């Protein structure tokens, strides 16, 4: 399971690069990248919980 830890840095790097392509202000880039990382993580967590529940109870 430890390899799941590598998800956070690589996703943050991807978000940083995508935001840096759009914006110039470093603070805004970091903030938007963090928000997007949080959003994506949230969606993935909710999705995986749903899949887990469906597999367990349906």
């Amino acid at each position, binding site marked *: 399971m430890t*390899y799941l830890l*590598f998800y956070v840095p*690589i996703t943050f*790097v*991807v978000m940083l690069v995508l935001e*840096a*392509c759009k914006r*110039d202000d470093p603070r805004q880039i970091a903030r938007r990248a963090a928000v997007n990382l949080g959003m994506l993580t949230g969606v993935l967590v909710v999705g995986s919980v749903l899949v887990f529940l469906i597999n367990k109870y349906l």
Partner: protein
Amino acid sequence: MKRPLILAAGLVVLALIAVIDVLVYRSGWRRRRAMAFLLAWVCPGAGHALMGKWRKGLFFFAILVVTYVFGLWLSGWRTISFDDNPFYHVGQYGSGLTALLGAWLGDPKAFPRDDLPKSWFDPGLLYVCVAGLLNVVIMLSVLDIASASEKQAGESPAPQAQEGKA
């Protein structure tokens, strides 16, 4: 096996692109845009530097190098050979630097490090691949910046048509 052959082929392709670029794009902005695009492929961030965005270029270079080196460290300083994972292997070609190192270090086949958990090997390959793929995004961003600069400079996208009207 054919490391010198791969490197020579890469250099020939680069030289050909540069020659075609000079022959085809005679307009200043178009040539600059094409050169920035080519440079962005050769070295991450170099295209932005050429377009005058030094800080952004350095940021892209630093972030991609850190990602790439971390991936290499995880995967035992071996890049991805075609046998390891064809998709990850192709991803390396997103930047000239990673493609060059891929050709140099990718043969023999990568193997997990003994001092790290075996499950960390695959994320290492992923980091190496993502560094190459992100450079493709950066290259497209260079084109965007070049188009914006061209518009700002007031040069028409079709200078020959303007010359004809005049």
